[in-house]
């Protein structure tokens, strides 16, 4: 921390020493506890920043906030036409519309957090240069924004499921959506932390992320049941370990089919969430001093 030097005799004769116990090192990473405390103090900032980002996006469009509802609806329709009507992957799936909607909507939440997280440091550059705040606020802002954005989607989902004919099997298990959603958001937050630092180190990653997300989408059983891969147990196992599969299955079981999800699904869902959010946060925190770098 302090630099040791050897002074020749008399070299410091004219030296003046200054009391320094209130001086702190500039630009250094804070100890973890102080860092988290400072981050907590920025909670109002995080909320205000996410809201203003939503308002900014909405303000540019003619329909404004309407897109928050229309976008998922059109997306779901598109996937329904392709996979439900044209490719016919709906075989063997009860209530395919609900199955597809849940898959598409909730998967998109994670995906948007991931791609937004990759850009978080770059798009927050002007704030980083202007103000001193724990930089972890930026990837958190991305996730909070996406969660707020997702609220209208929830409503769309509820309406679609209520209106469309194949009525679902409603039970008390619907409330399980809440803990599952919390876990999914934690997982997405972990991804955002992780990719925020990676994207800062190597900006090219944002291109790669888009491609990989596409693979991930198909591997998570969004449009079809992964029971199709019964004959290839290896592939099926990998698909099942994949965190998004567990989240989507728990949502479907709880909302559509009214059945209990197997415990291993919950364990995977919780395990992935906590491992990612803790590891991601620490990984991002370790890079704290680098985010202001000019380049």
């Amino acid at each position, binding site marked *: *921390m302090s*630099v040791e*030097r050897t002074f020749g005799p008399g070299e*410091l004769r004219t030296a003046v020493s200054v009391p320094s116990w209130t001086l*702190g*090192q500039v630009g250094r990473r804070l100890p973890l506890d102080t860092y988290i405390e400072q981050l907590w103090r920025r909670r109002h900032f995080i909320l205000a920043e996410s809201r203003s980002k939503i308002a900014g996006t909405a303000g540019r469009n003619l329909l404004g906030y309407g897109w928050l509802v229309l976008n998922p609806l059109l997306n779901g329709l598109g996937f329904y036409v392709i996979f439900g009507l044209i490719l016919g992957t709906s075989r063997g799936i009860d209530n395919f519309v609900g199955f597809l909607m849940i898959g598409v909507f909730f998967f998109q939440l994670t995906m948007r957090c991931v791609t937004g997280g990759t850009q978080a440091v770059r798009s927050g550059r002007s704030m980083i240069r202007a*103000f001193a705040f*724990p930089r972890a606020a930026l990837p958190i802002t991305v996730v909070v924004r996406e969660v707020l954005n997702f609220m209208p989607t929830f409503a769309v989902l509820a309406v679609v499921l209520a209106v469309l004919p194949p009525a679902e099997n409603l039970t008390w298990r619907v409330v399980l959506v809440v803990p599952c959603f919390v876990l999914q958001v934690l997982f997405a937050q972990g991804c955002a932390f992780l990719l925020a630092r990676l994207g800062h180190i190597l900006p090219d990653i944002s291109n790669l992320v888009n491609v990989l997300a596409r693979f991930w989408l198909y591997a998570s059983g969004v449009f079809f049941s992964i029971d199709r891969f019964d004959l290839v147990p290896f592939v099926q196992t990998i698909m099942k370990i994949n965190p998004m599969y567990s989240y989507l299955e728990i949502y479907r079981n709880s909302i559509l089919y009214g059945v209990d999800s197997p415990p291993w699904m919950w364990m995977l869902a919780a395990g992935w969430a906590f491992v990612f959010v803790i590891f991601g946060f620490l990984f991002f925190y370790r890079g704290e001093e680098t985010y202001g770098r000019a380049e």
Partner: protein
Amino acid sequence: MAAPNETKAASVVVEDVHMDYSVRTSGGGRGLAGKVKSRIGLGERTRVEALRGVSLLAREGEFVGVIGANGSGKSTLLRLIAGVEKPTSGQILARRQPTLLGVNAALQQALSGAANVRLGCLAMGMTPEQTEAVYEDVVRLSALGDAIKRPMGGYSSGMAARLRFAIAVAARPKILLIDEALSTGDATFAQRSEEAMNEMLADAGTVFLVNHAAKVIQELCTRAIWMHEGTVIMDGEAEHVAEKYRWWAWNVAKGETAVAEKLLAQAMDEGEMQNVYVLPEAPMRMTSPRHATRVRRGGGYRTTSLRPTQAPAVAPGSQDESRFPETDLLPVVNDVVIAKQSKPVGARHVSRR
């Protein structure tokens, strides 16, 4: 020199700071392989030394002007003091988290000035109530009028700089670093900002101002630092240093390179560059209370701290404290003593005057 000033507490300490940038040399045209190599540190790169050993000690109540030609490292120094970037070697200590007003003043282009004020205050760690409390002051100081409701992307650079300044001052910073930002403001704003800065200085603050114009430095600052190619050429009274710089710059502009070289050498010889050392504290610190006078012995030298009883920055419970809580992001280092040594040539400089 400047004996009364020596008793003020240090607010910024820069110890032998070096800053190198690695820049990929352009025109290599070696495609992807070259890019990958340079990214992982194997490719051809040029090291640009932005700062080569800068030391300085700024005290409370000082208004320090930083002057120098383009590319002399002024802005880099300010960014490092603000903690936006980390020096390659050396260290920087500060009393409070410094606030930087950079050249690029725009914050969030899509948002209105008002939204930027709120976001900025919250980012600095204020609560929503505190933000509302200072909001009117910020708008008044920025003198933007109705423009505060317009998106910041449409602001002129002067307007954006005014708003940035007003937001920064709202948090009552103790250390303000201004990088040319105020040069774009108009006369009315110049007056207001000067008042705001004087208030800050009176309240034991420290201001650094980077500017090309020697005149501005002379008018505003109490002390000036002339930087040239990453080193401090001269450090002293603003009037004197700025005058020397102006003369040098004029000769450079006229193409009188020989005269300019001579002036530079002369200034370097005469100029008083501080050597600052942050020393590991003597082990005896455990035996005496924190506020006791520190006496260091050994190695044939003895130094005494001049201002032994200095309470930590703001007295707790004061009005300032309750309205603007500590929003610092500085891990406080307790185990150092700072020794400042003036070069012997400094004595000559004083005797000459």
